[in-house]
């Protein structure tokens, strides 16, 4: 009887441990699924499909008088050249299949296999190689995102022809091009060198990365000095009175205010009251600075507090004033901790989207911003924008951009951990 009771209790103990194990493993499984599903979807986004197009750079169309005037060449009818060479491929296909006539619809469908800006690639190639005018050259131009997605196996072709974005004819064309070795798979350079675009094959994240850089720059310039100075004041100089108490409570609560409320603040104060330019990294950075301020203050205070009082007393003992003891001795010892806190705060700011949504930084912006007052977008906002795009090719772009964002965050956090381990002192 007694033994039975004991066994029951031991079983309960085992069950309890099992529940704990399950909880921990579930958490880790969630993490793995989250990161894994994004990695799986995103890796293919770093690759793209190009088509080798044999182009006749006809002298008559480009430079009839052979003046080699770059401006005139720039303006010539590139669209015609691009179309001609694309239709040549279609004719070659028809020849091989013994089809005589080309219908209008076929032409239109065939054009859909190529990037909408093919003509610009041909133009840029020609401007770099002026000698090739009048010759037939092989130029590698991006395919449309349709071909790219099809070759990556992301389009389900088992369904009815009407229900999928690609029809049977287009598939046979693509297979023809694959057989003739016209298709090349390469690293997607456009993704890192271009701004946003409506065409999935053209869209890149450079604009968003530069925008994020400017936003973080503004945030750090504002939040770092203000945060560190108020931490110094509160930790070293503030008298123990009501005002100090209010400031402290206030900072703790500010750290927990939802980020979207900071967006409302920015909208009402920075945009409407001070009239800062909408969508600019300046306004966005200021909002993020206010948002990260509590994080920086709290971690800087911890860092300053961890410097032992003996340091201060020693400095004052040899005649330094309070100010001198703080600025010459305490702060230098607290710098690693302060920097760690700042980097963690900035990493949070880098991944923040909601307040920037309010500041108009979620917008379709093609140009890469040049200054902190230009309209721009940021990396997480770009992810948000692309995730909304119905076109299939954007899905892997979104995941690829997410990978880039996570890599940035990981680097920043690793830097913070490194700083902490390298310079942390135990007193």
């Amino acid at each position, binding site marked *: 009887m007694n033994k039975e009771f004991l066994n029951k*209790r*031991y079983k*309960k*103990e085992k069950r*309890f*441990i099992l*529940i*704990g194990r*399950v*909880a*921990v493993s579930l*958490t*880790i499984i*969630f*993490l793995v699924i*989250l990161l894994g*599903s*994004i990695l799986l*979807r995103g890796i293919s986004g770093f690759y793209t499909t190009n088509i080798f197009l044999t182009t006749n750079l006809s002298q008559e169309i480009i430079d009839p008088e052979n003046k080699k005037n770059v401006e005139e060449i720039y303006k010539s009818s590139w669209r015609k050249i691009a179309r001609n060479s694309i239709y040549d491929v279609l004719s070659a296909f028809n020849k091989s299949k013994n089809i005589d006539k080309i219908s209008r619809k076929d032409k239109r469908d065939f054009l859909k296999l190529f990037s909408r800006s093919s003509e610009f690639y041909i133009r840029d190639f020609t401007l770099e190689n002026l000698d090739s005018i009048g010759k037939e050259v092989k130029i590698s131009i991006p395919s449309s995102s349709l071909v790219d997605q099809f070759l990556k196996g992301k389009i389900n072709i088992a369904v009815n022809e009407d229900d999928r974005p690609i029809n049977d004819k287009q598939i046979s064309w693509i297979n023809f091009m694959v057989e003739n070795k016209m298709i090349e798979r390469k690293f997607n350079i456009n993704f890192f060198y271009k701004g946003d675009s409506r065409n999935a094959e053209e869209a890149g994240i450079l604009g968003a990365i530069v925008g994020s850089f400017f936003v973080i720059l503004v945030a750090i310039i504002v939040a770092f000095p203000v945060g560190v*100075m*108020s931490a110094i*004041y509160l930790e070293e*100089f503030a008298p123990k009175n009501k005002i100090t108490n*209010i*400031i402290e409570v*206030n*900072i*703790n*609560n500010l750290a*927990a*205010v*939802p*980020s*979207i*409320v*900071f967006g*409302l*603040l920015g*909208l*009402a*104060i920075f945009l*409407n009251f001070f009239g800062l330019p909408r969508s600019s990294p300046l306004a966005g950075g200021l909002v993020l600075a206010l948002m990260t301020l509590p994080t920086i*203050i709290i971690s800087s205070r911890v860092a300053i507090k961890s410097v032992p009082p003996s340091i201060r007393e020693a400095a004052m003992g040899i005649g330094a*004033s309070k*100010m001198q003891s703080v600025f010459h001795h305490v702060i230098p010892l607290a710098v690693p901790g302060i920097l760690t806190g700042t980097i963690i705060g900035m990493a949070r700011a880098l*991944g*923040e*989207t*909601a307040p920037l*949504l*309010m500041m108009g930084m979620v917008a379709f912006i093609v140009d890469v911003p040049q200054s902190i007052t230009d309209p721009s977008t940021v990396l*997480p*906002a770009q*992810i948000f924008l692309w995730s909304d795009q119905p076109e299939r090719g954007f*899905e892997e772009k*979104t995941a690829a951009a*997410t990978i880039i*964002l*996570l890599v940035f*965050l990981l680097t920043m956090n690793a830097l913070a951990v490194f700083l902490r381990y390298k310079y942390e002192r135990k007193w």
Partner: protein
Amino acid sequence: MFSLPIYFIIFIGFFSYLFGKNRSKKKILFKKNSGGQADHYGYYCLIWVTVPSTIFFLCWQIASNYIIEISTLESIPLEFIPEEDSLKKLLLENIIVVAEGGSSLAKVPKISVDNYKELKFFSMVGGYSCTIILSIILCLVSFRKIDPSLMAKNVIERFILSVLFISSVIAILTTIGIIMSLIFETTKFFNNVSFFDYFFGLQWSPQTALREGQVASEGAFGAIPVFAGTFLITIIAMFLAGPIGLFSAIYLAEYASPLTRKIIKPTIEVLAGVPTVVYGFFAALVVGPFIRRTCEDLGFSASSESALAAGLVMGIMIIPFISSLSDDVISAVPQNLREASYGVGATKSETIKKVIIPAALPGIVASFMLAISRAIGETMIVVMAAGLSARLTANPLESVTTVTVQIVTLLVGDHEFDSTKTMAAFALGITLFSMTLLLNIIALRVVKKYREKYE
């Protein structure tokens, strides 16, 4: 990048530092009596010169811009003046663009353009010369002040102290800014919509208030469905995160070996570092479609923007908040309580259930409250994975909307600021702000009291 006087101020500041330092060396015997070293006198002059003149210059710029705008508006001939205020602003912007050498599609009166140019020129010349003269005068004054009786070091330290104080006040100003801007817009909102309708209305459809003179142009601003949606998603999230977070915390604090703890704890905290937009993408792309497919296979109908998808992903997001805070409070329970329990023959799980959890309960409750406040204020997951239409439902497979989603949809892309629609967003904002603030204040209090108990 900066305008001329700023460079001048930097230059004269540097110059006054050097001369102040030299002059103090000549006038003061540093060994005998002094209010500092030669350097301090240099910095004294530097502060005296740069700070007032920079402030003066900035004030001049702001004030002159304001005055110029007003006088330009007044100079617009009668036939150009549009009726609406927003159009007036646009006209003013066009005038400024034209005056600065750009071209504008709209017709702008030439008189005001000339007027603007003229005033701008005067303000520039006046501002520049006044700033430069002021800084020179300040430079001379500060030189004259250098004297053995001047305690330069103390003056500098007082100055630095006040700068430190001002920066710590910025946090308070931020809070005041938040509260003021929210209250200001919200009172305007309650002028149009009654208090009672907002808090007890069952219909939320702000879109109808777009056009004036429309039938039912007031729109419907009953916030109950919106809050119901928020709570539904929060409850789903807490159902997932609560048990998992708490049991992870118990396992890590009581059972796990130090090595396991060292590896698992940071791994769980990675979840807290993932940006919310990534969770949103995950919810909209992976979890939402998965739930819909599973439900279709089982024979229910589910929306692809179901509350369940958003709630579950949000739950994953808040696991680390619960687990790390609960872990802290469980570890803070004094060892002698555990040992007393083992001493009377309890097993480890019995000790945890009967002794440690009751002792740590206030802290655990606080961690739950913080997690709830996090979930209520979370934006990106619900914007990407939850719906837009406010439906009053308790079915987690239907799509619901939340406070944050409504704030975002009401404000994004809306340029006209004074409509009831945008003000409604601020009313929702202040409700959200007060709810999270209340939860936080209570939670922080509980944690603080609890810590004191065992210290």
